[in-house]
């Protein structure tokens, strides 16, 4: 892939940034690079960055194909605009990087896949108590007014990660991607040292590898507790304390930033290379260690009561990965 980064105009690389369905945190993460961004700017031109620069889609359309060396694309594909720009940027960039969990796996916007467009509109535009819904207004792709036709992008039934609509070269995982991973990626780009296409630019091991808590034991989970139910011991593994921590099923690379704040991992860096479905893997792992000493004596009711302690299974196991899971949206009604 490194040869893709050979550039036409001198030694300066041409970058682009874009946001689709996202919260904006990824843009902040770019700025979190702090003064190092100056090194980037010193060696690169930023051609397109809607959040920070006054550039238009027309400017991008005017570029020759492959004009930009690298495009960092954050946000998931929620509507036709995001899809169209993703396809445009794919054409105009030599390297397209899915930046952050939304582009990588769908992330929080992907949880909308528990519902379809109709339900999302009903909730957002009709059932919202703070809205006056007397006119029944909701977004439409075409609206005729006396000045002419107005158009809005089409809101899709479901949310997609970036690689469902265009070919993606690399992934920078995280919600948002941790600064060290961003710097590693940028350095690799400048040095022409990128790995094989399709790689996730993060360690291959799970977070337990980085985690400093006591965990070198045969793991058992005594119960399911929520974080407010106990004062978690900051030295001990969350799972051993009954708190669901997605760390074992989640890529390392974040330097355990949540765990350092005594909060369990929620899984934003996504699964490790051998795993297709992070949530399913974690459910399978928990099933193997949850109350194993007592499960033989437990009645079906007790087992059900135990499982009911997971108050939001999709939000727990698929907070970031629902849109890219094997079952990636609700089927049927």
């Amino acid at each position: 892939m490194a040869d893709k980064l050979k550039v036409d105009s001198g030694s300066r690389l041409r970058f682009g940034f874009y946001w689709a369905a996202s919260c904006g945190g990824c843009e902040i993460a770019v700025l979190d690079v702090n003064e190092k961004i100056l090194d980037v700017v010193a060696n690169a031109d930023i051609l397109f960055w809607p959040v920070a620069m006054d550039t238009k889609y027309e400017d991008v359309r005017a570029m020759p194909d492959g004009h930009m060396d690298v495009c960092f694309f954050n946000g998931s594909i929620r509507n036709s605009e995001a899809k169209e720009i993703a396809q445009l940027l794919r054409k105009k960039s030599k390297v397209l990087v899915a930046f952050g969990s939304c582009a990588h796996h769908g992330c929080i916007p992907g949880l909308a896949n528990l519902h379809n467009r109709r339900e999302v509109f009903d909730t957002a535009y009709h059932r919202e108590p703070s809205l006056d819904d007397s006119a029944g207004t909701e977004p439409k792709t075409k609206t005729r007014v006396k000045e002419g036709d107005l158009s809005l992008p089409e809101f899709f039934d479901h949310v997609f990660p970036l690689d469902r609509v265009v070919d993606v070269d690399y992934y920078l995982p995280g919600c948002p991607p941790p600064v060290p991973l961003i710097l590693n990626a940028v350095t690799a780009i400048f040095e022409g040292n990128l790995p094989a296409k399709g790689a996730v630019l993060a360690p291959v091991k799970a977070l337990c590898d980085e985690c400093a808590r006591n965990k070198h034991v045969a793991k058992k989970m005594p119960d399911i507790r929520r974080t407010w139910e106990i004062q978690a011991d900051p030295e001990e593994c969350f799972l051993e304390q009954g708190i669901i921590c997605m760390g074992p099923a989640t890529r390392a690379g974040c330097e355990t930033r949540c765990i350092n704040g005594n909060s369990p991992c929620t899984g934003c860096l996504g699964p490790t290379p051998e795993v297709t479905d992070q949530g399913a893997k974690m459910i399978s792992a928990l099933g193997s260690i949850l109350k194993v000493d007592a499960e033989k004596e437990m009645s079906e009711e007790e087992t059900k009561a135990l499982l009911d302690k997971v108050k939001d299974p999709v939000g727990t196991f698929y907070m970031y990965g629902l849109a890219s899971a094997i079952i990636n949206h609700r089927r049927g009604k």
Partner: protein
Amino acid sequence: MGKLIIDGIETEAAPSKTVLEVARELGIKIPTLCSHPSLPPYGSCRICVVEAIWKGRSKLHTACTFPAWEGEIRTDSEPVRRLRRNILELMLAEAPEAEDIRALAREFGVEQTRFPVREEKENKKCIMCGLCVRVCQDVVGFAAIGFENRGYRREIAAPFREPSDACTACGACSFVCPTGAIDRRLFAKVEPKPIPSEFDQGTTSRPCIYTPFPQAVPNKPVIDTRNCVYFKNGNCQVCAKVCVPRAVDYEQQDEVLEEEVGAIVVATGFDLFDMKTYGSYGLHRHPDVMSGLDFERLLSASGPTKGEVRRPSDGKVPKRVIFVKCAGSRDAEQGMPYCSKVCCMYSAKHAILYKHRVPDGEALVFYIDVRTAGKDFEEFYKRATDEGVNYVRGKVSKVFRRGDKMVVWGSDTISGRKLEVEADLVVLATAMVPDRSALELARMLKIQHNAHGFFTEAHPKLRPVETATAGFYLAGAAQGPKDIPETVAQASAAASKVLELFSRKELTHDPNVAAVDEDLCSGCGICVDVCPYKARELIERKDGKGWVIKVTEVLCEGCGACSAACPVGACQQANLKDKQIEQMARAGLQD
């Protein structure tokens, strides 16, 4: 050392022993009343009196306290008999109601006493030998009874003639009393608690030192340390005193033996279903409702009634016995869904044996099906019906007491009638369940078992005596309900499998094992306890940076539990990797 002649038999004088002991060794009978091997001789009853002749002089002396010096002893001379008659007359005056004394007196030709009876004495059986007092004080160490008053007013009593807490109703006093004079209610506040015999299903009691059952291996007595007086207060030790080879050792401890073995055959056997969910059948509530195993003991010549069929409540011979099959078996709601397999045949056997013991009795069997799949089984069932055992097809709904009868409500599904039958005894063919120790053992050995706790064989048809774990084999009811011939066959097969294993020069192993990809393993430890074969352990990485799983591949049986548990796909089974399975699923779903 000189000679001692007892009743003309010459022996060595042995002053360390008493005349009584030496005479008994020679087989000479001397009557005793106050003597007991657990206590030193006391000489209080005087009945063992003998004539000692030394250097031509004769004197009368109690044999139990007289050393076996050289000389001559006559145990049955006229002076001896005369004195014993006098002693017995005195005893008859002291204890006119003591049957044992009357019998002994008759032996010596004494029918009447010339002495006045002590009318004011309360206990008319007690001869005041004091054996009970000595046993209570010196043997069991409770000192709950003693002598009261002096001289002609003397009696045996508890302090202040009131039952006391000191007496535990152990029964040692009644046990040693030569005349059956003890009324424990005068001494004890508590009722005696007989220790139920485990082997007799609690229908009889057993002592604190006992041989577990007649064919026990090894056939040696054991001490029940929870009930033994010695283990309570350090007293008694009677068993050690009476044991001639001095084999009783209270210091012996339970030993845990560690053995290295090449194979283990699991043969934990079975237990009976506890019938708690069958309250309406009245087992444990009515003495005359019993399990098949209880009835088996009742039929046994070494059982509580020496083989006579007598019902527990009143000892009467039952004239109608109802056998209820499938009590707990083949009932997914209240009991066990499976067939316990042996009940049809043992119920037929019980009914036949009952008919033999009580020819005018009636045996009635309630059944769902009669399953006689086995060699000569159908013929045996036919024999039962030919010998007059009645079979009724239907389930029993309720068993209850009416007067001294048990009433059984059931149905006859062939004639379509509801039945109410009175019986003297009800025998339930309770379901077979795994022994209660099996589950713990399964966990220890990590052998799989089914929902009911029966161990699972490696393959139901092709590997019926092996488990999924190499080196563990199954035999008998631990694997599922089965009868004796089947158990013996399976046990023989298991033994052959073990020999076959031991005879191999090299052991082979299925290559389908789960390894670990150390580049992916983050050392989370989730797979360690999941492995049923203890093939996985967490070790520190060589570079010291974190932890990683180490797999002992020969222990792995390729079950895949770790692959399911591993949250990163670092441990995957050879040839069955997640992505391979995913591809298989995709290919399969393409049609």
